[in-house]
């Protein structure tokens, strides 16, 4: 773990008043390496390490505390702060249904997360959710959401005229007339570099004006996290992130990259395949995980 690595490097600091000079060089190189191994993007790791070095340079060695421990605390605290300090809740509308749009790369967990969100809203939050299946491309995508909706007792609006925009529009209208208070729109997975598909999302956003656009990202994504998140954010200004498959053993450094590059908070984490496996985001826990 990072703690042991620092103990080794910084044993020489005992008794010194300041962490400085080449000690910081060695330590920050170790942090950078650990972050890269955790899938943090190259650029984000570099910027983060520079900030940590700056804070460390001025720091006094805490009496009785191993320099390594203090250094890790600086890293840990900065990481927690970057990840968003505390939990960012879902934005809910004051009048008319809240519209939540799920977007992201192929296979990230959008359809499953849409259903999980519906379950959370219906159950713990006592609301009346409505699901809209706007993935008109993937074989049996609509059926997948329909099965999940049926298991939850949540209605699922099916595609109209093989047109995602029309489906979104009519789905919202149906939800309004049925007095549902939350509409969750599932969209097809797509590449951020697919111009036509990204424009489809832009049109849906322009028309429906969602209260939340959630970028659903697979927690095991590597360096591509920044490329995808940056493009999705530039085009859609997504308001939150769902980080999925955290029941795996990936370090999840992509969360740090996505947050650093877009400023959007992680609002939920997916922690399993069952529909109850959606948890609010705990920055402390993810920081521990990224640091290994």
């Amino acid at each position: 773990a990072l703690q042991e690595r620092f103990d080794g490097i910084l044993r020489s600091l005992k008794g010194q008043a300041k962490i400085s000079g080449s000690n910081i060089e060695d330590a920050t190189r170790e942090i950078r390496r650990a972050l890269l191994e955790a899938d943090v993007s190259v650029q984000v790791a570099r910027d983060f390490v520079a900030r940590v070095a700056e804070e460390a340079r001025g720091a006094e060695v805490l009496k009785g505390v191993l320099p390594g421990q203090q250094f890790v605390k600086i890293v840990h605290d900065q990481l927690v702060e970057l990840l968003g300090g505390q939990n960012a809740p879902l934005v809910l509308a004051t009048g008319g249904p809240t519209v939540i749009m799920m977007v992201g790369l192929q296979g990230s967990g959008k359809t499953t997360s849409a259903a999980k969100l519906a379950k959370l809203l219906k159950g713990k939050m006592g609301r009346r959710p409505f699901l809209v299946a706007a993935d008109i491309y993937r074989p049996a995508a609509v059926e997948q959401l329909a099965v999940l909706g049926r298991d939850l007792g949540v209605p699922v609006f099916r595609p109209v005229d093989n047109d995602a925009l029309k489906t979104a529009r009519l789905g919202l209208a149906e939800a309004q007339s049925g007095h549902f208070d939350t509409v969750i729109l599932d969209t097809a997975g797509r590449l951020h570099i697919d111009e036509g598909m990204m424009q489809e999302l832009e049109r849906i956003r322009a028309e429906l004006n969602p209260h939340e656009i959630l970028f659903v990202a697979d927690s095991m994504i590597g360096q591509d996290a920044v490329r995808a998140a940056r493009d999705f954010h530039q085009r859609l200004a997504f308001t939150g992130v769902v980080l999925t498959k955290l029941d795996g053993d990936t370090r999840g450094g992509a969360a740090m990259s996505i947050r650093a590059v877009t400023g959007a908070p992680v609002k939920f984490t997916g922690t399993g395949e069952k529909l109850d496996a959606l948890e609010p985001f705990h920055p402390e826990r993810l920081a521990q995980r990224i640091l290994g």
Partner: protein
Amino acid sequence: LGTGRRVDEAMLDELEEILLSADLGVDTAERVVSGLRERVKHDADTPLDRLIEEEVLALLKPTSSGLVPQAENFGDQPRVVLVVGVNGTGKTTTVAKLAAREKREGRRVMLVAADTFRAAAVEQLEIWAGRAGVDLVKAAHGADPAAVAFDGLNAAMARGHQVVLVDTAGRLHNKKNLMSELDKITRVLSRRLPGAPHEVLLVLDGTTGQNALSQARIFTEATGVTGLVLTKLDGTARGGIALAIHQELGLPVRWIGVGEGLEDLEPFDPSLYARALFE
């Protein structure tokens, strides 16, 4: 990087960044860079981009593409391919693409829908079977996947199919019960037909980072992976972790997925791949 540039430390740093951004991982990227630093000392003539390409290719040797030597090994028994991997990587779509390719090459294909767990998984493969024009064996939702695998292989052998492609449910490698389920599927196939599965393809999402290495290790332990498929390389990801996997486990990349359609599968070409790392 430009072919006219001389190799100095600044240039090597830049190269390392490119390799890291391609998900090679710290150790593999360092290995390529230090290998290059050495070569440049003894070789002033070879153009830089050739040198880099050779360093990367060295990591991929020996490797082969998806063109598996066929009929002579199998007589009148089907070749059985088991497709595995973590959730959402593109297994079902890859199975469909492989089926289409085999059919195009004149073989009778049987698809086996052994993902009996996920919502609409069987329906998804069924649609693909229809589009590819191949047969499908399925069972009721919630059936034992090993039983479906057995029934599928059985039916294929009875009806004289030449290739059996078994699609399995996505599963995270740290879930012991799911990995032992996979081990059971493998054993059941080999009991029905000694030597089966002849290929076990681990499907890796091309956007996956360092976690792909643990995936490869643990899936290999559970089910004897014989080759990799790297999907979603039509995006901006480069799947560089495949180099580290090949280094450590000797697993070759057999195929790459380059889109969501039936035709979007290509045999792995190491030279094209090495060059694409810099695009």
